[in-house]
């Protein structure tokens, strides 16, 4: 009667912990903000358990009340609890940002992989398309796409993802270009490996570090774009709370919006972006110090 111990899980877990330990030792500040980021993600996931009220539940006896013991962040024009809305808002904001970055960077990375690997006319053509995409300021491109496709979670994710594609494409392409000249790639070609095997087995694994760095550094940008879209009324439509459309609602509520409706959602954006950016810096320094300041 032998006990089969799962070998993969503990070793991965150990790798994660050793990575985390290195992060704490080498970049305590990043580790600190990493904890904050983890807390924010945790709060978003556990929103129903953490939030004191429902995000859409209005209390008509407490409309537009300043912060109090009952409502820490005050209430909005129709008596919804701002704290709860900020917490539920993190769900939407993070879903959009993570979805967009993951989707956009992955598409960009695969595209960049193909461009760098095949080169030639395909690469030329692709680079032109990427340049056209980059001739638009990010937010304007995202606005146009979100407007054309109509509001809603998938379209907002798609709109932001498309603005992230050029970055993934460019960075991964340049990584692949330099990898292609490596001897082990040449050797693989020498023993007759197929294109797919070369790309996915030999080159792709080397792109994981730049991919992770890109993804974390772009999370913050994606959150700000999502908030701006919400603020301009082309993001996720109300009543679903997002930090952007809460700020927009505050401004629509009258000439002088109450300060708590402005302060708290914006502070949530700032702290979240700050923590993701600093965590991203730490991960970049840890994985590849040569990339400092370049991605």
């Amino acid at each position, binding site marked *: 009667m032998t006990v089969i111990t799962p070998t993969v899980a503990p070793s991965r877990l150990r790798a994660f912990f050793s990575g985390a330990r290195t992060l704490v030792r080498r970049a305590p500040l990043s580790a600190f903000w990493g904890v904050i980021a983890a807390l924010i993600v945790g709060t978003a996931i556990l929103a129903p358990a953490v939030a004191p009220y429902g995000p859409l539940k209005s209390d008509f006896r407490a409309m537009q009340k300043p912060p109090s013991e009952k409502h820490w962040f005050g209430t909005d024009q129709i008596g919804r609890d701002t704290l709860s809305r900020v917490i539920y808002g993190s769900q939407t904001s993070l879903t959009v940002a993570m979805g967009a970055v993951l989707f956009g960077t992955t598409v960009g990375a695969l595209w960049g992989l193909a461009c760098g690997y095949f080169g030639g006319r395909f690469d030329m053509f692709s680079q032109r398309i990427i340049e056209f995409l980059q001739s638009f300021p990010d*937010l304007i491109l995202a606005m146009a796409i979100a*407007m054309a496709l109509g509001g809603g979670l998938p379209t907002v994710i798609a709109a932001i993802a498309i603005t992230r594609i050029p970055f993934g494409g460019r960075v991964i392409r340049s990584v692949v270009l330099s990898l292609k000249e490596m001897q082990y790639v040449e050797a693989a070609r020498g023993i007759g490996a197929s294109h797919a095997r070369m790309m996915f087995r030999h080159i792709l694994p080397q792109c994981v570090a730049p991919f992770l760095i890109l993804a974390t550094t772009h999370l913050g940008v994606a959150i700000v774009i999502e908030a701006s879209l919400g*603020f301009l009324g082309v993001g996720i439509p109300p009543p679903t709370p997002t930090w952007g459309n809460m700020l927009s609602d505050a401004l629509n509520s009258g000439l002088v919006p109450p300060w708590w409706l402005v302060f708290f959602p914006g502070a949530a954006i*700032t702290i979240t972006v700050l923590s993701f950016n600093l965590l991203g810096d730490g991960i970049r320094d840890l994985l590849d110090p040569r990339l400092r300041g370049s991605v």
Partner: protein
Amino acid sequence: MYSYIARRLVFGALTVIGVSITVFVIMRILPGDPLVAVFGSEGFTKLTEEQRAGLMKDLGLSDPLWLQYLNWVRDIAAGNFGKSFFRSESVADMILRRGPLTAEIALLSVLISWVVGIPVAIVSALRPNSVADSVVRFLSILFLAVPGFWIGMLIVLGLLFWFGYRAPMTGAALFVDPKANLELIIGPAIVLGLGQAAYIARMGRSSLLEVVREDYVRTARAKGLNGRLVIAWHALPNALLPVITLSGVLMGLVLAGSIPVERAFATPGLGFAMFIAVSERDVFVMQNLVFIYSVVFVLINILIDLSIAFLDPRIRLR
């Protein structure tokens, strides 16, 4: 040098054509039916079949796509940017009326970003890892994270709350009413300027740190030149080249950022018009505004590239 300029201009023209096709694809083809984009899917179903056909015909939407595209390009080339679906003012008039305000905001913000960012970069590069450097680095990381429009809303609220002040709500031209004009643009310009200053300080710091290690800087020091003069005369000009390029890239941030920021300040500029176009789902105005913003962005970057080539002989002679 001339061949470089020519190449850059041809390339720029190609980019503008590519941009126009991209805009057309996004605004006209992606929505499937532009009427859905204008009326919303709910409003669209309320239209009768004849109404739809009539609208399509009026708006020139029943032509084949390539003809629609050519018509659009021809209109733009003739300076005819069409009319809003909901307003009588033509888009060309709107741009002439609102554009200058946004242009002033953009220019002033770039000025502010340099005035703030460069000294900060020098201070933090000359004493790396000092207290001042750490403070500056933290502040620049903070400013990278803060959304400009939120700061804008806080400024508007704060001024109103503590000083009972509110910037004028109507447009004011620079030469007609300079004071009101300044009051309109100063808020957005500061917010956008500080946002850029964070990037500029960061880039300026690392670029200066690199340049200071160069041989010619050591030579200048060795010949006994005063430390400040070495920085001002020898190190800074070279360190600023990448910062100029960055400023061009950041114009994208300013042009796009001015849309939510103008909304936050209720500035009657072009960015605000874009916000209105987006919230009214005015596809045709949006299409032209997106195109114009992108062309401006492309042109600015060509200008930046050319001035870099002018300033840096290594690029000019390549």
